[in-house]
């Protein structure tokens, strides 16, 4: 029976009888997620405070760590998978991520551009930035 079937509610672990998960394996999934999340968080705090890394790359590194941790939360805590019963959840999520990226990247780009183009003198720019 691999034809059309029900979706899975977001946040629900797999409910198929053939891969029925006992409580202990459910606990294992959450514990792996917690361990990964703690590791990534600790790495973020280390990256932000260390002087061993090239300072210019720290922001990028922090962003990558945050994306990784978001992935860990989605997979281990919210049970988002690539399975066919999860397609609608993933599509919704993908749309949300698209809008978030448009809003954040678009705002930053436009405002940076505005600051570059509209303010001819540096002190005028300071004036604008401080009010």
């Amino acid at each position, binding site marked *: 029976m691999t034809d059309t079937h029900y979706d899975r*509610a977001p*946040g629900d672990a797999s409910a198929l009888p053939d891969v029925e998960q006992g409580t202990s394996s459910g606990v294992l999934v959450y514990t792996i997620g917690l361990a990964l999340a703690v590791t990534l968080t600790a790495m973020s705090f280390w990256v932000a405070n260390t002087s061993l890394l090239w300072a210019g790359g720290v922001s990028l590194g922090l962003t990558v760590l*945050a994306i990784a941790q978001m992935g860990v939360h989605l997979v281990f805590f919210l049970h988002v998978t690539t399975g066919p019963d999860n397609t609608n959840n993933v599509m919704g999520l993908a749309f949300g991520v698209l809008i978030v990226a448009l809003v954040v990247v678009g705002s930053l780009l436009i405002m940076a551009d505005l600051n570059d183009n509209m303010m001819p003198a540096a002190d005028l720019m300071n004036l604008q930035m401080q009010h």
Partner: protein
Amino acid sequence: MNIIVAVDDEVRHEARPSAVEAGPATKRIVVGYGFWIFLLSDIVMFAAIFAAYAVLIHATAGGPGGLQLFNQRSVAIETGCLLASSYTCGLMSLAISSRRYAVTYLAALIIFVLGAAFLALEVREFAGMIAVGAGPQRSAFLSAFFMLVGCHGLHVTAGLVWLAVMMAQVAIKGFRATVERRLLCFSLFWHALDIVWVWLFTVVYLMGVLS
């Protein structure tokens, strides 16, 4: 084909009927999906506030910036509280699906205490900032900061109230289908808040103290 496969097939067929013969999806799926959409729209709202913060991050108007104001130790503890409560929330949903009242109450209590500890730390941080004259009216940067972090804090507060209400419902009504659906939505909400916090501590507190 042997008997085991046949039986297995039958069981699966029963539990997972095709959409044509099964009709519309169960209410748990519909409710969960609707709440999923709401959470995504909530996160889009957070994205707008994040964008405002990122745009205004240097607009300190001569006032204090993140480097002078943020205390990483307290942020680390707050992060730990939220992460642990998210983990406990996962364990609570396991306890709910296996109908264990005592474990559910215990997990809810731990979630509540950790969430309240998070809020207490945040309120202490806000009060400390306002005490040194770095309130939301000091600069555009601080307005954006209080808006962003405060909005997340309000969400956590709402989550705690919701959790308390849900425990009252479990105590009075037991694990009914409606109560279970609301608990599913609560755990989605709580995990989503943790994802927002991941971006918050990265963008605001960690990137904010980079020179």
